[in-house]
């Protein structure tokens, strides 16, 4: 693979990641984030593979496989999974506090805010990312530096998704986009962190998503609403000063 | 249903339209000679002048997938300005007499008025009702009549085919 091909492939895959990030910001509250997330994950894995081929590092092929399985298959599946109430033992209420019985209300129509501000904000964030990445692109040599702003943009868009997400699922999606952005930056800027760290990071991300998934279902139980995409987190307002 | 579900449903269903029957003899002498320019393309504006909705169901069936009136060049439109045929169903009630007249006036010539169903032809069971002005022919000139209460979709399609000549 020539360096021209490699840089073109990197640009294409990075563009795909950016596109899926925008799609995730664009998506209505009722549509599943699984497809775009999976595409983003596979694009990231493809990026790793391309870098592996371009730099002749067979270790990166292994990492690409790991990333593809984790971010292309496992995590998107975990995000959309709705654990059934009966399956997991719900946390029993504390003995000293009587459990309030709430009717389980499932709204038929998912309320959704307008995505326009978020979308326009995402566009602005991408510009910010391009500006912020400029000093880094200066020091990164090789075919990958040009696409580096995409990693930054993903981080910022993920952050925006997380901050504006009203449901447990949207926040989870934001977290994954953020994480994909960091991973993209890592692979584009450095050709990947050391393998030990990479393995640990992958494990951590998987566990965090699992933990959040379980907590999300507990929130559903505690707040008594099982809307698609999880309970409206605006209800989480018992703790404040 | 998922997209894959829709695709497989569409594939399994295939074409559900009835096979096309050859057009019968030109039974409708009422179709005027100057309607010849309508051959092959007829836009239909449907007017409910006071129907019980039985005919409406049959109109919908005539343009539904099974009878598929569109394959003979007929098409329902949303405005009388776009129409060649005013398809009137039901007896003409007091409130609808004037709108019906205006609708027919708003239809550019050459145009045809088709009275569909027994009510539209001779008031049917509603004859003599206090709110009834009369049959369609008492209000506007009628070119073609489709008998039946309600007429079968095949009859609707057949009548329109005498205009489209397909």
């Amino acid at each position, binding site marked *: 693979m020539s360096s021209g091909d490699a840089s073109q492939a990197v640009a294409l895959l990075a563009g795909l990641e950016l596109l899926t990030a925008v799609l995730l910001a664009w998506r209505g509250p009722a549509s599943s984030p699984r497809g775009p997330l999976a595409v983003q994950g596979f694009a990231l894995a493809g990026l790793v593979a391309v870098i592996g081929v371009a730099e002749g590092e067979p270790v990166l092929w292994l990492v690409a496989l790991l990333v593809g399985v984790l971010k292309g298959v496992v995590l998107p599946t975990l995000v959309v999974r709705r654990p059934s109430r009966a399956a997991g033992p719900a946390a029993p209420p504390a003995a000293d506090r009587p459990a309030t019985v709430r009717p389980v209300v499932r709204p038929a129509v998912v309320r959704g805010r307008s995505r326009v501000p978020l979308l326009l904000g995402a566009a602005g964030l991408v510009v910010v990312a391009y500006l*912020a990445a400029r*000093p880094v692109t*200066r020091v990164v040599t090789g075919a990958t530096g040009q696409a580096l702003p995409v990693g930054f943009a993903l981080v910022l868009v993920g952050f925006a998704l997380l901050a504006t997400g009203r449901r447990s699922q949207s926040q989870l999606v934001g977290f994954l986009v953020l994480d994909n952005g960091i991973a993209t930056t890592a692979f584009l*800027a450095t050709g990947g962190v050391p393998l030990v760290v990479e393995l*640990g990071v992958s494990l*951590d991300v998987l566990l*965090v998503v699992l933990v959040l998934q379980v907590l999300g279902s507990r929130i559903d139980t505690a*707040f008594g609403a099982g809307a698609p995409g999880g309970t409206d987190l605006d209800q989480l307002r018992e703790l404040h000063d | 249903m998922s997209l894959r579900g829709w695709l497989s449903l569409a594939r399994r269903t295939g074409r559900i339209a009835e096979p096309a029957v050859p057009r019968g003899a030109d039974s409708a002498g009422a179709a005027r000679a100057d309607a010849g320019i309508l051959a092959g393309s007829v836009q239909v504006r449907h007017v409910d002048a006071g129907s019980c909705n039985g005919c409406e169901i049959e109109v919908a069936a005539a343009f539904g997938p099974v009878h598929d009136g569109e394959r003979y060049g007929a098409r329902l439109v949303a405005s009388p300005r776009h129409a060649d045929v005013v398809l009137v169903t039901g007896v003409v009630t007091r409130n609808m007499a004037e709108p019906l007249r205006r609708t027919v006036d708003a239809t550019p010539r050459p145009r045809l008025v088709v009275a569909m169903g027994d009510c539209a032809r001779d008031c049917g069971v509603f004859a003599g009702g206090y709110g009834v002005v009369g049959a369609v022919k008492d209000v506007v000139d009628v070119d073609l009549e489709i008998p039946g209460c309600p007429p079968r979709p095949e009859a609707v399609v057949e009548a329109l085919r005498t205009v489209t000549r397909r």
Partner: protein
Amino acid sequence: MAAVLTAPLAAGLAAGFTAGPVVGPALVWVALLGPALCALAVLLLRRRAVVLVADVVASSVVLLCGGALLAGVADGGAAVVTAGGLLRVDPLAGYLLVVVGAVALTATWGGLSPGRARSRRGGRYTTLVCLFLAAMVLAVVADDLGVTWVAVEGTTITTAFLVGFAGGRRAVEAAWKYVVLASVGVGIAFLGLVLLYAATRAAGDPTLSWVRLVTDRPAVDPTVARMGLLLAALGFATKAGLAPMHAWLPDAHSQAPAPVSGLMSGVLLAVAFGAVLRIQRLDAVLLDGAAVRTLLLVGGLLSLLVAAVLVVTQRDLKRMLAYSSIEHMGLVAVAAAVGNRLALAAMLVHLLVHGLAKASTFVMAGRVLAVEGTTAIADVHGLVRSAPRIGIPFLAGAVTLLGLPPSGLFLTEAALVVAGLRSGYGWAMAIVLVLLLVVFVGMGRAVIAMTLGAPAPAGSSEPAAAATEALSAPLAPVALALAAACLLALATPLAGTLDSVVAVIGGAP
């Protein structure tokens, strides 16, 4: 308490330490795997006795190994390196191990609860606490900053269910916010580490090893390295509870079970701050050190401000203690920013003393909750007279936290102010003093209202099982910890050890 308890043991171990090169690495592995094995034992054995004491055993193991390692590496000893350089114990790591062990022992011993051990989920609780300890130990002894990051993220994962352990809407809400905010914050730190790695890669030697970065001083691109170090410091500061990234802290600390609150408040913050200290050292070595210093100074003063404002208006006891933690982390950050030897030494002692005092106070706050059924400040009166076994140690802990003499915090705060004045941070010290005074008044008023004065007329005469357990729970750990918190700062023989720790993080004279 650490020194009091472990001095003889540590001396013995240190003797063996110098005898052969095997002992040091072995101690590191014991400190790391001990808690993990305790977790495994709980999972496998499921005996009530094991469930009850496993976390105490794990804490003791960490304390002993930490003491021995500190004794070995301090005062000119060579750092212990193992696992191909991934793990490395220098004096700072040894000291933080001692802090982890000592505070964890206080929290777990004081939080011993036969009732919880009997319950269905007691095993899960103990397992998670042991894993939490293991993650903290890994975060401290890792030399590779990437491994440190993985371990810090691991502390979030292991504490997530501990924060939500009580169940119910408030606990699960706190857990959700904690995991989301902490993992995002720590994610930012990883982005920073990635940039740092990219900078070192461009300089020709890609590495995240802290010691290699400090000793080799690669010629990194200053802009990228500064971005990376700032992001990394910011991310780890989230986990250390510095404002304005502190939003998760009051929720998590107020909803977690008391011993876990004590652990998180007393050591998790310190462990995360240890990572910040290493980042600060890198900033000083690779660049001019101004960026992270400014970040710490601003973050520290902001934390003090946030704590001062919210402690005064606080209505919940555990939230008040959480804001007190933010206040103390703010002090620590300011001390790190001042950065001379006196300030750094004061900061190190402050970390330990605050951890011991905070863990004791949280343990006592848990008993207050068990006895009174509430942590609302306004609903608790006259504890000293109604339940002296709880009221007196609680008052003692709170007074220690407030920094009244003979508390060690009084000395460290005084030393910090002196150090700040010497280094030309007079204006900052003025702000610190004013805000400390506000916190002192706000917290003091609440504590006095709760402990002194006449008790409320007793409502229900039937004490709950939890209350009975709380009234008979051991006081020894709290007493020991508070005694250590008062005496430790006076222990002059430790000065040499402190000197070597300060040398690691580069205290300019």
